[in-house]
């Protein structure tokens, strides 16, 4: 009889479940491992919580999660962004259920304890019921450490974590390139598609740098494009690559000519953007039109930031583990803040074309991920293979791992970090 490997390993042996070119099936469906991940990964590293454009003004807030824990991201009146646990210090009620909004502070609806934007306690009703040593300072909302880079706001429970700057490391230049899709305007967020799939969070983490699946899973999307765009998305035999950026991060360059959106501005305007270019020409100079149009399709690469954010083409993809077998995904559309309406409309239509429950791409991805989870019930002692392109390991610039565009280098990078954190 088969015995699942996980039964044989203690916590300190978790490392045995991740080998150089494969990971153990139990990583997808073992509840004990999931609990440890929430503690050792989501409880200790930098987790992406919001983009600055979601909370531009004092008092603006969005509610979200850090791992499994509900949290509030709020900008205070001085402009500092805070991330608080969404839990009243009295009996634990959430102090805010709105998805987003603007608030002077948060009043718990149960017994009325109130908190300022920075989390400090303002007061309690009928204070004379408490003994004289009741000190408001002891009952502030619990706040996480917060840092941001290029508009991306991250939070961590871990005071000992390295600075965000250090954590992002070699991913930073790629974040800078990604933000060039503002086309000269600040990058803004404009709504999102949110869905859940019955599968483990790491199945989607792997997908961000999985070009291998694209022509198969997204054939119906490819068929819906004009010939020129179809050519652009047939990147598997191109010069793209996947590179390990350290700390679990990785980048997959699909369309090398679209890595830097400020280059090649005099290249001909692609067929699918001709109409937009004509519309923009009425109000913008030729140079502005070219810059904006080139940025509209988004960046030619996917950047995976371990553990929960991907910067992909023209959207942010955020994952949230819900349980060992359920994951929530948000695809946040990116627009040019203050940019031309026509360009932003085009962005939204491109987003709807691929993403969302009725998109031509995401539902096929979700179906594939669901089938991975279902299939992983077979053969509990089997392994998930990540061995594509191992010959590129160590061959990139400066000896980093870099494989061709279809290599599984990015997944190996993520699991390497997983192993480091889970065995720390």
């Amino acid at each position, binding site marked *: 009889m088969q015995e699942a490997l996980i039964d044989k390993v203690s916590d300190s042996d978790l490392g045995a479940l991740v080998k150089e070119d494969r990971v153990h099936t139990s990583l997808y469906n073992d509840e004990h491992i999931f609990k440890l991940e929430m503690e050792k990964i989501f409880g200790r590293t930098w987790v992406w919580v919001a983009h600055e454009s979601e909370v531009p003004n004092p008092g603006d807030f969005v509610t979200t999660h850090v791992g499994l824990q509900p949290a509030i991201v709020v900008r205070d009146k001085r402009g500092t962004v805070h991330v608080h646990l969404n839990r009243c210090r009295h009996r634990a009620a959430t102090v805010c259920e709105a998805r987003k909004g603007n608030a002077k502070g948060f009043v718990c609806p149960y017994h009325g304890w109130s908190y300022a934007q920075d989390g400090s306690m303002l007061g309690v009703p009928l204070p004379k019921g408490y003994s004289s040593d009741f000190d408001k300072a002891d009952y502030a909302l619990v706040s996480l450490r917060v840092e941001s880079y290029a508009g991306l706001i991250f939070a961590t429970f871990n005071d000992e974590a390295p600075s965000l700057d250090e954590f992002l490391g070699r991913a930073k230049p790629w974040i800078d390139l990604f933000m060039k899709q503002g086309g000269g305007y600040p990058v803004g967020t404009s709504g999102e598609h949110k869905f859940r799939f019955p599968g483990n969070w790491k199945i989607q983490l792997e997908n961000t740098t999985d070009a291998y699946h694209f022509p198969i899973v997204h054939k119906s999307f490819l068929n819906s494009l004009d010939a020129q765009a179809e050519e652009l998305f047939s990147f598997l035999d191109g010069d793209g690559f996947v590179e390990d950026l350290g700390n679990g991060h990785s980048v997959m360059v699909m369309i090398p000519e679209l890595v830097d959106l400020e280059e090649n501005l005099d290249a001909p305007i692609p067929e699918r953007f001709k109409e937009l270019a004509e519309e923009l020409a009425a109000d913008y100079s030729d140079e502005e039109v070219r810059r904006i149009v080139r940025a509209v399709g988004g960046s030619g690469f996917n950047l995976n930031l371990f553990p929960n954010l991907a910067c992909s083409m023209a959207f942010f993809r955020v994952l949230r583990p819900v349980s060992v077998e359920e994951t929530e995904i948000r695809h946040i559309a990116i627009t040019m803040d203050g940019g031309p309406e026509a360009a932003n409309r085009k962005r939204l239509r491109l*987003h709807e074309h691929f993403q969302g429950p*009725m998109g031509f791409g995401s*539902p096929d991805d979700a179906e594939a991920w669901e089938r991975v989870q279902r299939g992983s019930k077979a053969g509990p002692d089997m392994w998930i293979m990540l061995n594509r392109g191992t010959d590129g390991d160590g061959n990139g610039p400066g000896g980093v791992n870099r494989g061709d565009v279809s290599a599984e280098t990015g997944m190996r990078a993520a699991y390497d970090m997983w192993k480091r954190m889970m065995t720390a």
Partner: protein
Amino acid sequence: MTQKITLEEAAALLWQEADLLDHREYDAWLNLWSDDGIYVVPIEKGVEDFANRLNYAYDDGEMRRMRVARLKSSYSMSAIAAADTIRTVSRFVVTGERSNEIDIRAAQILVEYRRDKTRPIAANVDVTVRRTENGLKLVKKVIWLAHSEEAVSGVGYLL
């Protein structure tokens, strides 16, 4: 002079549409549309300017044809694994009338079955129907999903 569209006529068209969609007769469904028609599934409640907002679907004639081509192709694994649907459209209210058009608000209760799960999907639907030389045509359909602001998982059919 065009003859006004009655509620009975509009209701018959919406029932025909529901029947075609449940039976995946997508080409016949395309024929129910006037080419300038817009099919929208919004995300945010109460939005009016759909074009400048993110939606689940915002389809003109070309996009509707592409969508149908995709659903009918054998290449989309989510379309192949799509749920079976049975829907009821009812509770019709006339919300507007012009010489050759009528606006209807209705309730749509769709029940889908897929992989051992039966799931109800509730929506309010705003529809505009126009009388043309080729009979009654849909010129607008806006599907306000009750759960549109929550996580909405793959829809491998048409709402």
